[in-house]
């Protein structure tokens, strides 16, 4: 980071000023002129927090997507379907057993198993044929979407929030001062904060696994040069299966998370797939930190867009993607 500061002093200054303004906007009580100009502080803070939590969900989905692409060059366009499938599986297990965590676990395991089957039965057949693999994932997503529509219908399902995560919580952000000097604090759903924490924990664990373990080392080596990795005697196929299972399982897990604080319905798979695509295009393919940055940007853009310019919310996300493609086609977090 220090290198960045010395190389781009002007940009660093801009960034520091922006951060300071943002912090002030979060913690200070807004003067009436500002509230008149851009609306109430409650709206702004909710959009900010909603954007961050939505970004957490996108991170969970997109990190699996980006890992699979980075290692296997397989653009898994069935990723959204795996998300939706995980959500339905989690809904089934959670509502039958009454334990939310059982739903999460079941979704992860079952979708990961499906991922293993896909990798072993389908993708190993067409090793190295990127386009054919991608087309096959499109076919799989069509089939899965219709099977799920068949099984679950067009209704929307919501997974019940576990009791210890239900309800709002008070956050230390002052919204306004009452006339008697008492501060009005922001109330925020605890479950969304839980999702944020979970995404951070999973992200850190993934970073540790990638950087500190033997398998992680092999995966990173495979991302850089797959042929050389297999030449050194590593069983690449095993690594592939592990990564595909983990990435798919993560999508399934995210499905339960998304089904808890949003809802599950046909069409959600495409929405999530689109979000993952934009996240990895913005962040850079194959990079976990890139997925984190991209997910945060896309989540924030979506929420702020839907609050401050409702009819053009999608366009904002899209403009960000276009700008990144125009300036840094390889994504924000990718070198080269």
């Amino acid at each position, binding site marked *: 980071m220090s290198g960045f500061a010395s190389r781009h002093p002007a940009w660093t200054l801009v960034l520091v000023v922006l951060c300071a303004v943002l912090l002030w906007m979060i913690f200070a009580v807004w003067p009436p002129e500002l509230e008149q100009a851009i609306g109430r502080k409650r709206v702004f803070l909710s959009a900010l927090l909603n954007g961050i939590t939505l970004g957490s969900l996108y991170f969970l989905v997109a990190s699996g997507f980006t890992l699979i692409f980075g290692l296997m060059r397989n653009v898994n366009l069935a990723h959204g379907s795996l998300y939706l499938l995980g959500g339905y599986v989690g809904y089934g297990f959670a509502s039958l057993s009454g334990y939310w965590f059982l739903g999460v676990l079941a979704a992860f395991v079952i979708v990961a198993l499906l991922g293993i089957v896909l990798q072993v039965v389908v993708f190993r057949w067409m090793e190295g044929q990127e386009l054919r693999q991608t087309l096959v994932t499109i076919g*799989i997503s069509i089939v899965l979407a219709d099977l799920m529509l068949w099984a679950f219908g067009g209704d929307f399902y919501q997974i019940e929030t576990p009791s210890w995560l239900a309800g709002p919580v008070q956050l230390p952000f002052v919204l306004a001062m009452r006339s008697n000097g008492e501060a009005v604090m922001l109330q925020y759903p605890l479950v969304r904060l839980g999702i944020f924490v979970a995404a951070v924990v999973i992200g850190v664990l993934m970073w540790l696994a990638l950087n500190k373990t033997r398998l992680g080392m092999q995966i990173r080596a495979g991302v850089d040069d797959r042929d050389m990795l297999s030449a050194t005697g590593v069983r690449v196929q095993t690594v592939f299966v592990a990564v595909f299972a983990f990435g798919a399982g993560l999508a399934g897990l995210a499905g339960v998370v998304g089904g808890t604080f949003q809802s599950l319905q046909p069409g959600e798979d495409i929405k999530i797939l689109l979000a993952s*695509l934009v996240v990895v295009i913005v962040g850079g393919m194959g990079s976990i930190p890139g997925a984190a940055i991209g997910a945060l940007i896309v989540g924030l853009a979506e929420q702020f867009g839907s609050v401050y310019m409702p009819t053009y919310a999608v366009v904002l996300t899209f403009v960000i993607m276009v700008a990144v493609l125009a300036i840094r086609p390889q994504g924000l977090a990718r070198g080269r």
Partner: protein
Amino acid sequence: MAVVESNSAATSAFPRDGNGFGWLQAIHPAGWALIVFLLFLPAFGSNFVLVQIFGWSFILGMIALSLMFLAGYGGMVSLVQMTVAGCAGYMVAILGDSAITQISLKWPWWAAVPIAVLIATIFGTVSGALSVRTEGIYTIMITLAIASAFYYFTLQNYTIFNGFSGFNGISPPHFLGVDWRDPTAFYYLSLFSAALSFVVVLYVSRSPFGLALQGTRDNARRMAALGFNVTAHRIAAYCFASVIAAFAGVLLVWYQGQISPGTAGVGPVVDILVIAVVGGLSRPIGPFVGALVYVLLRTFSIDALQAVGLDGKRFQLVIGLGFLIVLLFSPDGLIGIWQRIRPRLLGPRNAEGGTP
């Protein structure tokens, strides 16, 4: 729709042998049979067959043809072609006449259609320019993202695109003394457009530009080293393909009489890819074969599914499974299957063309 390339690519469809009609001899007898069949179809086909089967197949085939041109000759699988068609359709509805009188500008067709095609072509070219900044497989992701963004934008925007309900009450114009709403007239219009785009694609694929484009597909670095501007060729290919898709979009909106976000939603976008891949990405005839198969399936699968005791709504499942089977067993699509079984059935000399 003629099958002019039963031999290898070495023999040009348009040999420049002086008399100017040499290309007629290049058309295979089966191609002539197909041309005669299609020209005289209105004499015995019902209006349903003319418009709902063949008219729709020609339109979808044209959109898939623009994808085939990019994918087969340029190596760029673009999912944005249906969106380009949808964009042209929307522009016809917005600039021309529709039932949504507070938005439509009521321009005459001869002004609305060229401007619509122009806008859609610009849209397609800019999308292409964005996606060629990255290599290979990224194209499919970026174009899918652009296509979905267009879908959600038309869904959310009410001032220009009239949101969820879109536009209805759009009808083909009345010109040259012909009412193009008439099934036979519309059939000939779509047949002529499809045949024209087919011939133009074939011609461009053999032109210096088309050959250079195929060179960039096979080895972009070598072409760049030879002095070709690879990026410019690719963007030009997008521009050319967008023109075809845009004209098909105009026909599509005339055929359907309405347009809404679902017309260019993610489902139809993927369907175009399915049509092109199932038909075969290696030859311009492939997309039309795929489109005919798709339309036949779409039209008759409900009855067929109910006949075997399944819900007629499982149509997508049939399409998806069929797509997977073709992909797993014949990467060249139905054209590829035909080319493999043809020598065994008929011998290479008197083989019939790849008629649908």
